[in-house]
């Protein structure tokens, strides 16, 4: 357009109400999860401060659990923003773990090869989920529900058929000396923790074979993966063109398609990313435990989705935040472990999940109304 158009004098429209900074801050997707994190920490600092929850070991304990939730929440979050669900995450975790165990222990292949093959297999299954959803136009809920049962069934069938048991151990022995395994099962900054212990900043073991060593001997790779994936997801979503496409695909696939956004490709890639995240979770878990069990990852798909919803994402897609989902995962980890430290019956964790989910959904719906101006 040329300079002939109306001189750019910003005239205040009398019908546009000024919005306060406070109200603006309210309509961030992360709002609910930030409030939740503050509330949860306040609660446990008041009730469980002297239980060891906030010493170095305690912090490492709930950080590790939170990091597990975070890894799968990042994938679920991006997929939900792109407008789809994946209910097969939990089964995928069991399947991936068992796949590593069978390749490395039963078949005695090198662990690095087992890990690489498992990643390829999981991402391919994620791609298949995506392909079916996109080609058939069926709700991803149903397609991935089918995958949930198929994968879980196979995870129980294979070890039984091959080894006549449902838990395969000995992966830690197989992984000794492997070059890839430490990327999932190792720890970093060990020197730093030794230094902390030497300077009396963290406790050391007083007895036993490890006397003198710090009680926390490094940051597990699980936490490194979680932080890495959160940063990757957040930057991809908010700072890149592809992120804009993810929002657009979930917000209104047809509108996005009409302006040239490759919606199918975006959704397809997000299904693969979710499977990748599940596989990272499984690999870290298998390396930590040294074994794979057919019941691993049970209900994880729902926990991932709840963390994402607490993080402010809308179930209908097109809106959400990876940081919010990460905070949702942190709430989970802290509460699940906090209840243990506070000596509360752990079954109450499920009650908490249900209640907080309900609150989060109600809050999100209200926020959505404010944003879209729906009445």
């Amino acid at each position: 357009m040329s300079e002939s158009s109306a001189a750019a004098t910003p005239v205040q429209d009398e019908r546009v109400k000024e919005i306060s900074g406070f109200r603006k801050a309210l309509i961030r997707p992360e709002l609910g999860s930030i409030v939740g994190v503050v509330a949860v920490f306040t609660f446990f600092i008041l009730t469980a401060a002297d239980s060891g929850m906030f010493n170095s070991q305690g912090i490492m304990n709930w950080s590790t659990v939170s990091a597990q939730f975070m890894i799968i929440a990042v994938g679920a979050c991006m997929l939900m923003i792109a407008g789809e669900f994946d209910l097969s995450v939990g089964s995928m975790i069991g399947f991936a773990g068992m796949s590593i165990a069978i390749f490395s222990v039963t078949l005695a292949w090198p662990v690095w090869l087992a890990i690489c093959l498992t990643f390829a297999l999981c991402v391919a299954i994620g791609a298949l989920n995506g392909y079916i959803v996109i080609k058939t136009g069926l709700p991803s809920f149903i397609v991935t529900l089918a995958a949930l049962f198929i994968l879980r069934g196979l995870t129980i069938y294979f070890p039984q058929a091959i080894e006549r048991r449902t838990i395969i151990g000995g992966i830690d022995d197989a992984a000794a000396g492997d070059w890839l395994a430490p990327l999932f099962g190792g720890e970093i900054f060990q020197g730093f923790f030794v230094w902390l212990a030497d300077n009396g900043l963290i406790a050391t073991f007083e007895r036993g074979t490890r006397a003198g060593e710090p009680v926390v001997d490094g940051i597990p790779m699980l936490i490194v993966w979680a932080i890495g994936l959160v940063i990757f997801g957040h930057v991809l979503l908010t700072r890149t063109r592809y992120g804009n496409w993810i929002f657009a695909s979930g917000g209104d696939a047809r509108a996005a398609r009409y302006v040239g956004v490759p919606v199918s490709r975006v959704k397809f890639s997000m299904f693969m990313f979710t499977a990748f995240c599940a596989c990272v979770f499984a690999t870290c878990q298998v390396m930590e435990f040294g074994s794979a069990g057919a019941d691993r990852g049970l209900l994880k798909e729902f926990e991932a989705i709840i963390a994402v919803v607490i993080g402010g994402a809308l179930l209908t897609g097109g809106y959400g935040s990876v940081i919010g989902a990460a905070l949702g995962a942190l709430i989970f980890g802290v509460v699940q472990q906090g209840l243990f430290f506070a000596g509360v019956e752990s079954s109450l964790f499920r009650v908490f999940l249900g209640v907080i989910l309900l609150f989060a959904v109600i809050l999100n719906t209200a926020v959505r109304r404010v944003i879209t101006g729906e009445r």
Partner: protein
Amino acid sequence: MTSTHAAILEMRDIEKHFGSVIALAGVSIEVFRGECHCLLGDNGAGKSTFIKTMSGVHQPTAGEILFEGHPMHFDDPRDAIEAGIATVYQDLAMIPLMSVSRNFFMGNEPQKRIGPIKFFDHATANQVTMAEMRRMGINLRGPDQAVGTLSGGERQTVAIARAVHFGAKVLILDEPTSALGVRQTANVLATIDKVRKNDIAVVFITHNVRHALAVGDRFTVLNRGKTLGTAQRGQITPDELQEMMAGGQELVALEDSLGGTV
């Protein structure tokens, strides 16, 4: 009817069949730069199918598309957009949950390279969005305002500004005024006029004769998948247009019984 310059877009005998249904049975129009070409027709006349063929959503079963004199084949909307044909859909123009600036650059995000990675250049996007909106006469609270908070007319204007900014040579507007109030309609019609003065060809789809006559230079009426003819401004009266759209007799009878208010 002779024009001094060649048509920028010419659709020749376009046919489109969906299975056994013939949606378009030979539709031809010519669109010129700096003109507003109104495409009129009742519901089911084939207007939507026709513009979707123009914008690359559908591929014609038969017929030719000439763009700037060359035969063109659009496999998908991206091809058409790259050639310079932009379409603003009535209800699908914008994504309400996303900010104006994210919507404005949807599919055409500006990028800034930091090291080996390309990032979405939000600073440029926000600045351009605010400038373009002000030019169209809309004062935004900020570029991060969600599109959902805009009125229907404002959303259409954002979509039109977006198309113009990205170098549309032909702008197709699918019933931009059908869901709007009087004031908002006037705003959209004024926007169409601004766009036309920038030497862009506008194809304005509507079934409202008054809206068409307010800005149109040329009028083509579609009925039952066929062109009933093209008229220039001043050659046709509102009544004649209305009658052509309705396909004749029944409406005349109805109009008499209603006292001429349709």
